[in-house]
């Protein structure tokens, strides 16, 4: 056997100077040769640790083995036994904290590029035409309703329909996909991929009803009258703001609004699409997570001369994925660390003109284990800006808790669930994803959808 390469096979990508002028996807993905070469790095451990690192328990060495042998069809089928959204997960999962973190190769060298290989298989399958459907299961006669067509709901729906249940799905917006469509930008996750995966779900037999805001058009109790079980995957809700003076000036967006305008409503194609967005020459994004990186990179593509990230701790504490931070840096996003807004200042027409920042230093670690930012007195500084995006998180969507008085909620308005089953306090009602946990990742929402699907199946089958 040839000596294993210590590093991952690199993935070719659009040069930074070019890609900030378009909305196309940044990395190109592996060629079949690159994929096989990378797959051959896998040690095929007898007791693989990577699987335990995957929230949806994909047989990772199994599918990699297929790739190494050049059997891509076998590989994709192996993934799809567990994961219906490989094209999406291969792109947006934080593999470095999950499967790849556990990879034995990673102890001394770089781990196997599991995410890139997953993505390769999904994209390969898409090129072969319409994906093959699994064998039709025997109908159980049970009806299940999924509220919210985001990652949690899609995953739960896929698992339940493949067990033979009738599955209906209600989506509040005019497109299914949830955060995959309104939040994650086109250049990171092309929408054609999301629609392809949703189309697959519909071909499996899931019926999707768009433009239906559950809680308003139908109560949970009404749904329980029509269905055997309900899964709530209603996702993110109202954004958090900094609560500093001037935050309601024109030109200040929440990340949810900024990204929804740009992605779901396609403001980047304005004026063909009629939803406007204030483009701004100097755009500040406040926050250090993946959403903040998405906003800062979107600002560049909308034509900002300077896109600046303000983060109150140092680079080391940033919650964003290393790859996202790296991409943002490559593209010229400016990082002003250990800084947070104290106030926004506007002109006489109420438009944002300046941000006033507090300088921070790092103190003792806090509850999260990260060093706490401490303000430095008398060190405030000002910067001229014309757009600010507040990307510091959001609470869970309030609509279901507001309209379902007998469902138990937690401190942040999240629906209380048993993480092992997804059960809520209301019999027959399950929940998962951001509405249960608060803002988290796509794959964690998918994992929660999987867990809930399992216990919904047990529940409706009377086990």
């Amino acid at each position, binding site marked *: 056997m040839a000596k294993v390469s210590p590093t991952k096979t690199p993935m070719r990508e659009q040069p930074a100077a070019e890609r900030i002028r378009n909305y196309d996807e940044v990395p190109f993905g592996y060629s079949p040769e690159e994929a096989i070469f990378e797959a051959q790095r896998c040690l095929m451990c007898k007791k693989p640790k990577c699987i335990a690192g995957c929230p949806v328990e994909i047989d990772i060495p199994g599918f990699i083995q297929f790739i190494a042998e050049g059997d891509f069809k076998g590989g994709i089928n192996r993934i799809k036994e567990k994961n219906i959204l490989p094209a999406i997960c291969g792109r947006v999962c934080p593999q470095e904290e999950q499967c790849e973190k556990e990879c034995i190769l990673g102890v001394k060298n770089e781990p196997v590029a599991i995410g890139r290989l997953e993505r390769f298989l999904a994209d390969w399958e898409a090129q072969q035409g319409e994906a093959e459907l699994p064998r039709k299961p025997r109908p159980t006669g049970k009806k299940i309703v999924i509220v919210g067509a985001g990652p949690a709901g899609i995953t739960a729906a896929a698992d339940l329909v493949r067990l033979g249940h009738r599955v209906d799905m209600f989506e509040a917006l005019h497109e299914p996909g949830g955060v995959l469509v309104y939040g994650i930008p086109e250049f990171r996750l092309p929408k054609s991929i999301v629609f392809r995966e949703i189309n697959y779900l519909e071909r499996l037999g899931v019926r999707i009803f768009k433009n239906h805001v559950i809680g308003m058009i139908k109560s949970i109790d009404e749904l329980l009258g029509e269905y055997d079980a309900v899964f709530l995957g209603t996702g993110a809700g109202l954004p958090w703001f900094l609560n500093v003076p001037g935050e309601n000036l024109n030109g200040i967006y929440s990340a949810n609004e900024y990204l929804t305008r740009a992605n779901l409503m396609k403001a980047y194609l304005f004026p063909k699409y009629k939803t406007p967005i204030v483009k701004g020459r100097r755009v500040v994004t406040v926050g250090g997570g993946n959403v903040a990186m998405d906003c800062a990179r979107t600002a560049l593509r909308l034509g900002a001369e300077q896109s600046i990230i303000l983060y109150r701790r140092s680079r080391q504490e940033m919650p964003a994925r290393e790859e996202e931070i790296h991409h943002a840096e490559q593209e010229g996003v400016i990082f002003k660390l250990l800084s947070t807004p104290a106030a926004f200042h506007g002109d006489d027409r109420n438009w944002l003109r300046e941000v006033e920042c507090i300088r921070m230093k790092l103190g003792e670690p806090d509850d999260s284990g990260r060093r706490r930012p401490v303000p430095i007195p008398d060190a405030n500084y000002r910067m001229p800006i014309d757009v600010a995006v507040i990307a510091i998180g959001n609470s869970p*969507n309030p609509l279901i808790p507001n309209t379902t008085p007998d469902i138990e909620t937690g401190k942040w308005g999240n629906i209380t669930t048993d993480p092992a089953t997804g059960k809520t306090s209301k019999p027959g009602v399950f929940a998962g994803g951001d509405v249960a946990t608060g803002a988290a990742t796509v794959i964690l929402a998918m994992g929660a959808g999987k867990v809930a699907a399992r216990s919904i199946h047990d529940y409706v089958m009377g086990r």
Partner: protein
Amino acid sequence: MARVTEIREIAPNVHECMVNAPEIAAKVRPGQFIIIIPDEFSERTPITVADWDPAAGTITFIFLSIGSSTEKLADLVAGDEIYSLTGPLGKAFELGKFGRVALVGGCYGIGGIYPAARALKELGNEVICYSEARSKFLLYWDEKLEEICDEVRYSTADASKGNRGHSHDRLQYDLENGTRYDLVIAVGCTFMMYCISQVTKPYEIKTIVSMNPIMIDGTGMCGACRIEVDGTTRFACVDGPHFDGHKVDWNLILARRKAYLEEEIVSQERKNYGESQSH
């Protein structure tokens, strides 16, 4: 899928549209709104529901053609399918028996107050409606309102019908001359609702206004519709749209509503001169 059953221009630039939406017709309560996207390219546009018929499965709404998306909507004809229609959204008015109630409507709000007026009358209130426009020919639903309430008091800028001036002038006059209300509800443009709130404040009459800030999703996700009420941030789509007019921070709202004027002009120009560029 919602289909247009009837659509007509009932006053210059004011359109009445009836659509087939049985699920919404069965659920909607006075004061709630819908979000419409007339075609793939248009914005999500919130519009107050003005009437409905659960038996026929229809809802009716009034809109002004004032931007590219509402123009698209106005171009629809009976039989057309609406790209996206979602509702009911927002909280309904909290209605009950209050005594004497004034409902003030301007522009789309004349239609907007209609269901609340009807429901309040049915609950045993004395209901006085104030309807206003620049001129008589811009008023609509006069008979419809007169039919369901005790009295309609008109105001027009040119005195072609009712009093000269605005509804807030008329309301001010009435209050100065001894009329007393237990509740005032105002639906219409922001400036009108602001003026009404100013007029009722010295008399300490509870005044509910129906806020119409810019919204994107309208389901409690994006935060675009944030306003300040009594010093705290509230979201019109899920906390509202109805708020206490004496506690709303009006300056902030009046400034935020004008945020996209320039982009709206670009949208309009592009429409008028054709979309030759391949954007």
